[in-house]
């Protein structure tokens, strides 16, 4: 049975990770090799399973592997069971494929780090968790992977946690992800309470019989989850800081795979969102806001990784937008997700390569003219650049164009708004990515004195090259005969073409998009080629620029709304606990002591007062008797 192989996808990197973590320093010599091998083996298994799937007729391609009964209490019955279908295999190949490339890259990139072994352990752990996320056949299984990748992300962002800001960044990512997890938890609870099951299949079956209100609630909760994991508005703030992690991590986790898990979740939950229009509307709104939000932030970033991170946020906004459009959009969301996986991972690795050559400098204002010193990096990065801004025939063109088109066709004012947002976003993307290219690779040298830029070794550029090829050809391949759309049809339900009237013919849309992209590029060229670039960010800029530089005040807002009131609440409650609650406890004690000390004074030591007491007692009793007998 081929399905019995599914578990090995996860088990291999998981065991490798465990071995690396437990073996400790002993594994320093071979740790990276084992890690890479594990990832590659997993990719091998995935590829084999993919070929097996291809060999099957469409309706038999999905396969499940039940491992054991995980939780079984009353009617709450969850198996540890894996589902490999057309959707998850896409992710499996992306995760293990890109993952393996990044492992290879990291061998070299991290070679000077004393803790390289641990780095590979975390990477393997991430691969395993991410695979579990996409392979779980129920929301609860997904949840395990979901938090697993969060953990791996936390560990990797904080890989250099001796630097306090990095440690803080890691914590921030984890906590904000937990906000998303809250949504996922609640979604599962609502689903169980209303449908009695938490498996995808079970809920898919029960969804049509469930009230829209319930489904909307589940949908909104899932959206919160997705927003947390995929850095969508309003839970986007952690992604920029997450760039604290080593660059391969940014490439793998915070560009290609983990951050797209939210899109996976929404796509996987298509049966809920399709039946909950309100939730779906919220998804597109979140997507649209985020794609603009990220793009705007990207325009003002001088840190190359943060610029790319903002771009990632924005691109995932596109995916979310697409996923929110329902059956017409799911396939495009996934397509963009995959192409983005190639080009963004490639660009991150490129950025890593640049940093590698520039003493880990990340400020683009201190780059410049690196084209000549890092030709391979330049070329691979450039191919990724062309892909992301959507120049045909590079991958991004196909996927993004489809999303813009679908958004425009969403109907009515909604379609126009969404389409415009997507188009505007494309222009911004072109602007900030061009800016990155110009600042990094062209123009004059603005290096620090001790910089000696050089091309990276083959272990680093080879993965970049392979990803660059992916950025070039993947879009084309996916759209040949709507290959990906058809492939995914069994999972996300087919959509008929012409269901919506087309607002504009596709070719016109592409034309408009390309025009806007060109405008974006031109502005960037005007601003950064025609004018000299300073190696420190100019201070005399507009207020708007300042706000954009501060990530549109996202951190300030979080601090004002959550952090500071939270800290105040904590302080208050600590005081309350001490003074009021414990105070009451001590008060009772003090009262007993006090009244004891008071009563003690009756013991004067004088016989006469004692006898008086007796007499008074006797008198009281006599009085009592008198009262009774009256």
């Amino acid at each position: 049975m081929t399905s019995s192989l599914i578990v090995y996808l996860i088990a291999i990197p998981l065991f490798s990770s465990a071995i690396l973590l437990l073996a400790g320093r002993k594994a320093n010599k071979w740790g990276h090799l084992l890690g890479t091998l594990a990832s590659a083996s997993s990719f091998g298994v995935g590829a084999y399973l993919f070929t097996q799937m291809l060999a099957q007729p469409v309706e038999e391609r999905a396969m499940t592997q039940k491992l054991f009964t995980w939780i079984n209490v009353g009617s709450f019955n969850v198996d540890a069971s894996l589902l490999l279908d057309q959707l998850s295999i896409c992710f499996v190949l992306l995760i293990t494929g890109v993952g393996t490339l990044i492992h290879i890259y990291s061998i070299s990139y991290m070679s000077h780090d004393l803790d390289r072994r641990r780095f590979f352990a975390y990477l393997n752990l991430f691969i395993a968790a991410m695979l579990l996320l996409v392979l779980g056949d129920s929301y609860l299984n997904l949840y395990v992977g979901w938090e697993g990748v969060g953990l791996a992300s936390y560990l990797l962002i904080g890989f250099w946690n001796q630097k306090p800001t990095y440690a803080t960044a890691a914590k921030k990512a984890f906590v904000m992800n937990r906000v998303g997890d809250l949504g996922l938890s609640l979604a599962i609870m609502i689903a169980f309470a209303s449908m009695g099951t938490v498996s995808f299949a079970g809920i898919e079956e029960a969804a049509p019989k469930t009230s829209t209100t319930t489904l909307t609630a589940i949908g909104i909760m899932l959206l919160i989850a997705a927003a947390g994991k995929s850095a969508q508005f309003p839970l986007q703030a952690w992604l920029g800081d997450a760039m604290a992690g080593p660059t391969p991590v940014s490439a793998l986790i915070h560009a290609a795979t983990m951050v797209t898990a939210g899109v996976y979740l929404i796509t996987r939950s298509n049966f809920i969102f399709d039946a909950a229009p309100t939730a779906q509307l919220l998804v597109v709104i979140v997507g649209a806001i985020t794609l603009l939000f990220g793009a705007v932030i990207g325009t003002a970033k001088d840190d190359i990784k943060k610029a790319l991170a903002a771009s990632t946020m924005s691109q995932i906004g596109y995916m979310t937008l697409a996923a929110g459009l329902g059956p017409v959009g799911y396939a495009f969301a996934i397509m963009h997700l995959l192409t983005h996986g190639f080009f963004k991972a490639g660009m991150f690795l490129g950025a890593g390569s640049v940093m590698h050559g520039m003493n880990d400098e990340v400020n683009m204002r201190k780059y410049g003219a690196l084209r000549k010193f890092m030709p391979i990096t330049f070329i691979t990065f450039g191919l990724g650049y062309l892909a992301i801004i959507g120049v045909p025939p590079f991958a991004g063109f196909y996927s993004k164009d489809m999303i813009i088109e679908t958004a425009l066709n969403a109907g009515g004012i909604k379609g126009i708004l969404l389409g415009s947002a997507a188009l505007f976003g494309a222009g911004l993307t072109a602007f900030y990515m061009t800016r990155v290219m110009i600042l990094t690779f062209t123009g004059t040298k603005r290096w620090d004195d001790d910089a000696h830029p050089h091309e990276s070794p083959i272990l680093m550029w080879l993965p970049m090259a392979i990803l660059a090829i992916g950025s070039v050809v993947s879009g084309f391949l996916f759209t040949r005969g709507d290959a990906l759309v058809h492939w995914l049809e069994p999972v996300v339900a087919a959509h008929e073409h012409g269901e919506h009237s087309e607002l504009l013919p596709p070719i016109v849309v592409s034309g408009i998009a390309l025009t806007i992209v060109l405008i974006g590029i031109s502005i960037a060229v005007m601003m950064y080629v025609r004018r000299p670039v300073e190696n420190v960010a100019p201070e005399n800029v507009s207020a708007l620029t300042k706000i954009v530089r501060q990530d549109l005040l996202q951190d300030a807002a979080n601090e004002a709304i959550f952090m500071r009131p939270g800290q105040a609440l904590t302080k208050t409650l600590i005081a309350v606990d001490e003074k009021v609650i414990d105070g009451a406890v001590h008060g009772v004690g003090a009262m007993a002591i006090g009244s004891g000390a008071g009563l003690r004074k009756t013991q004067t030591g004088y016989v006469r007062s004692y006898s008086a007491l007796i007499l008074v007692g006797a008198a009281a009793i006599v009085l009592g008797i008198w009262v009774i007998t009256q």
Partner: protein
Amino acid sequence: MNSANYLYLSALLFTIGAVGVVIRRNAIVVFMCIELMLNAANLSFVTFSRMNGNLEGQVVAFFTMVVAACEVVVGLAIIVTIYRSRRSASVDDANLLKR
């Protein structure tokens, strides 16, 4: 004469004795007040004896007298010792033990 009046007298004597215990300072006087209370009780016994028409109350009175005599022995011993130690028979001076 109504024998109940003896009871009132007895109660009065008892009260005088009890109040005396409370207000007098000299240990001897206090002790005598207690004796007064005992004798008030005796008076009650005898009165009740008469009212009830049996002798038991009078028997009790004899017992009481014997017991009171014993009490005097013990009491005086204690009071004298205190007096010797403190050169005072005031009960208010004996105030080491309190609170």
